[in-house]
């Protein structure tokens, strides 16, 4: 039984990630925990295990879901296991006591259910001497405000992977700004270069946990955006807010409308299609909110590459956009973004049949 070659001796993050991913695919929690802890025992830095093995594998899980290879539930199981692994790592090699550099509250945006990246950030910051309060996934702005008032952290770090949550980010930033607490934004939600972090009024942006630790080490108090001119002022301008509010209020109606245009006569709208169209409206609202058509274009492009059975198909994107544009002619910016996105993807494959 013990004659198996010692794969556990591997300290190469890539090899470890493969082994870890295999355990995730098998829904084997004890196995996944063992991969992580044995790597640490073999001398791998816990931070490397957390960010390169666990987080790296989770990215692959996301890709598999987007490619239609894994179901949502499989993805949830994998994420659950990874969360247990993070907890096990924290118990196995606990972060040293805070060095007094400061207190940071880590929270996911309201509506952001992927709590793992924020959890990893919390672990990494704790290993960089910060006293960390992890508030969890999908934190309502009111709860964050209560926490900031009560605990008074030096910095609030907000995390999100979905740009469609940006209007929620704005509310959270405002809640923190009222108390004078700087906000560091992180995660793909804020754009590849963090431009939407500025748009929602955050004081800084970091692409990932390592960068966030570096940014905070360099300037514990923020603000981290160098040029103040672009930073807070009137992010989420009036038109943006109004049109975003319209989209939010009419979301259900718009989804039904677009669904009818995409699959006329299909009767009951499939849940997957409704989900995708809901995301479409959410991303449109977020793009309008931060006044950046690129946000919407990016989503439209992405939706074309994702294979979710019964979800929005590539050739259905254009008719959905048409239907939305017709229904939203009263909102100038929204209509402009819809037309722009359509123009940008005029070369969509023609519908089959």
């Amino acid at each position, binding site marked *: *039984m*013990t004659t*198996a070659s*010692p*794969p*556990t001796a591997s300290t190469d993050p890539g090899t470890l990630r493969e082994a870890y991913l295999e*355990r995730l695919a*098998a*829904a*084997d*929690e*004890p*196995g996944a925990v*063992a991969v992580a802890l044995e790597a640490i025992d073999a001398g791998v830095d816990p931070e490397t295990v957390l960010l390169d093995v666990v987080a790296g594998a989770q990215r692959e899980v996301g890709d598999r879901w987007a490619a239609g290879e894994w*179901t*949502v*539930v499989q993805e*949830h*199981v994998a994420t*659950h296991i990874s969360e247990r692994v993070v907890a096990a790592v924290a118990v196995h090699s606990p972060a040293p006591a805070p060095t007094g550099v400061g207190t940071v509250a880590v929270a996911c945006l309201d*509506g952001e*259910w992927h709590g793992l990246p924020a959890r990893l950030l919390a672990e990494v910051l704790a290993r960089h001497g910060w006293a960390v309060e992890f508030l969890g996934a*999908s934190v*309502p702005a*009111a*709860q964050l*405000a*209560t926490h*900031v*008032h*009560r*605990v*008074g952290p030096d910095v609030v770090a907000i995390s999100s992977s979905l740009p469609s949550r940006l209007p929620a980010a704005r509310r959270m930033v405002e809640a923190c700004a*009222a*108390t*004078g*607490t700087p906000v560091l934004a992180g995660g793909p939600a804020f754009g590849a270069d963090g431009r939407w972090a500025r748009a929602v009024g955050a004081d800084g942006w970091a692409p990932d946990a390592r960068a966030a630790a570096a940014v905070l080490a360099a300037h*514990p*108090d923020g603000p981290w955006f160098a040029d103040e001119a672009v930073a807070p002022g009137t992010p989420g301008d009036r038109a943006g807010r109004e049109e975003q509010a319209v989209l*939010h209020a009419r*979301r*259900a109606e718009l989804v039904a409308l677009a669904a009818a245009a995409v699959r006329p006569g299909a009767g009951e709208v499939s849940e997957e299609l409704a989900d995708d169209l809901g995301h479409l409206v959410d991303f449109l609202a977020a793009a309008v909110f931060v006044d950046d058509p690129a946000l919407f274009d990016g989503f439209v492009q992405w939706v074309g590459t994702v294979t979710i059975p019964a979800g929005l198909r590539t050739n259905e994107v254009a008719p959905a956009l048409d239907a939305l544009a017709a229904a939203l002619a009263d909102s100038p910016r929204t209509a402009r973004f819809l037309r722009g996105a359509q123009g940008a993807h005029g070369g969509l494959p023609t519908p089959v049949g």
Partner: protein
Amino acid sequence: MEGRHGAPTRDATRAVEASSPALPVTPPPPDGPALLEGFEEGVVVCDRGGVVRAANPAARALLPGLRVGEVVDVARCDVLARAVRDGVPEGFEVVVDHPGGERHLRGRRGAGLGTTPPPEPADGDTTWYLRDVTGEHARTDTLLAAQERAAFLAEAGRALHGVLHLDRTARRVVALAVPRLAAGATLVVRHDDTVIWACAELGGGRPRLGRLATADLPRVPALAAALAGDAAAGPWLAGELATLTGLEAPTGPVRACPVPITGVVEAVVVLADPRSVEGSADGDDALATVEEDLLTSYVARAGTALAAAALHEEQAHLGAVLQESLAAPRLPETPGVVWGAAYRPARETMRVGGDFYEVVGGKTPDAPAAFLLGDVCGKGIEAAVLSGRVRQSWHALRLVEDRPGRVLPLLNTALLDAVATRDESPRFATMVLGDARPTGDGSVALRLAAGGHPPPLVLRANGEVEAVEMSGMLVGGIREARFAEAEVLLGPGDTCLLYSDGVVEARGPGDFFGEERLAAVLPRCAGTPAAVLCEHLEQTVVSWLDGHDHDDVAMLAIQAPPVSPDPAPRSEA
């Protein structure tokens, strides 16, 4: 109030401004000399050699050294002399000595005017118009200074009012004071039995902060006196500051500014090298007064903000303690049983609500794990307090009675008795409680009792969903209430889900989430760990809400562990 320093030239200036535009285009009128004499604006005419050919009384009053027939230099105004000689600058402003004190003089070259007599301008003559703008300057300076003070106070108010956290407020208070009010500032605040100090100095970066016990105050008697409102700080204040903070003592003068009594905190701001002292040293009493007013206003704002922060902290602490005692419990590790739970209170700010669940142990085989999920009527803190009563009663009762069918009537009686002793209006609860016993072959036997609660659902490993038909009456309603009992056997991978009505009554845009949707979502979760199932359901329900308000949402899943699909090929296996 506006402190008009010096010359009262307001009316004169206005008159000149009104009449001057006419001057350049007006050729010297026949009665020119009389007209010039009457001007409030000074007029000087020089020839090309710089000799003054004419000067009206206003000009002679401004430049008493000016003599007609002598070179302009004797007026001891260098800029004017240079302008006359070189032709530039054509406009200037300059401060000149004057028997009545310094005057601000504004001059410009204007259209040529004849001298008197003759009225015709001679070739090469230049004409200069001079005006006393001392008063204008003083008013502008006063206005700017007043604006600056108002802006400082507005900024102080803005920066302080929303903080509501004592440490951060303390940091803000001292950060605001430097450099506007002083080169260094230390705030000492006493709240209950803690003393907090915050210190900022010029170029010192982020304000430093520390705390000590009030028992240490006797070591710093002068500070203690200042804290109690005594502004007459003795010579030891600077040294005591160093004792308190462990930082270097300020070298310059220090001044203690006690914060007005708020009844909540005692506080004093000690300024090092304060500006208000400099002002009075100059003998400028008006300036010293306004600086003093500014300091008073700032200290008052600081006091209000500190009191608000301290009060809020007390309240928040109360809330936090309560919240902690009522928060959803951690799930235990029970051999042979997998637990999962989700909880989302309606009032997000307090994070407590009327839904609750409890799970206890099952560490030994003969003491099965017991669980409870319920919902008391109402929302918010009142509901949370009642739910606390239910939970505590259950914790005690289950120690003396392990049959769920017997625990529930006892709980009913306990609630009714508690209400009866307090003249409270009856408070109802609905709940499902029970215990879970691993059978040893991978299954888990459940005994359940329910009163007025949505029936539990069983999700079989193969994806089938069954409702456990049981209803029963409200708990805490009447003494003769009858409750329902049921037994369920969970095979490996089977899950029993208890949930509160907040799940099915979650109202999205248009419709309730409903039992049907819940039953439709569940099969997709077949085979997932109980925790993932609850998380997935919570997420589904909250997405359904789409930002709408909701009731408390609570879920508890009890699962018989699934047979591992793919045992890990690990070395220690």
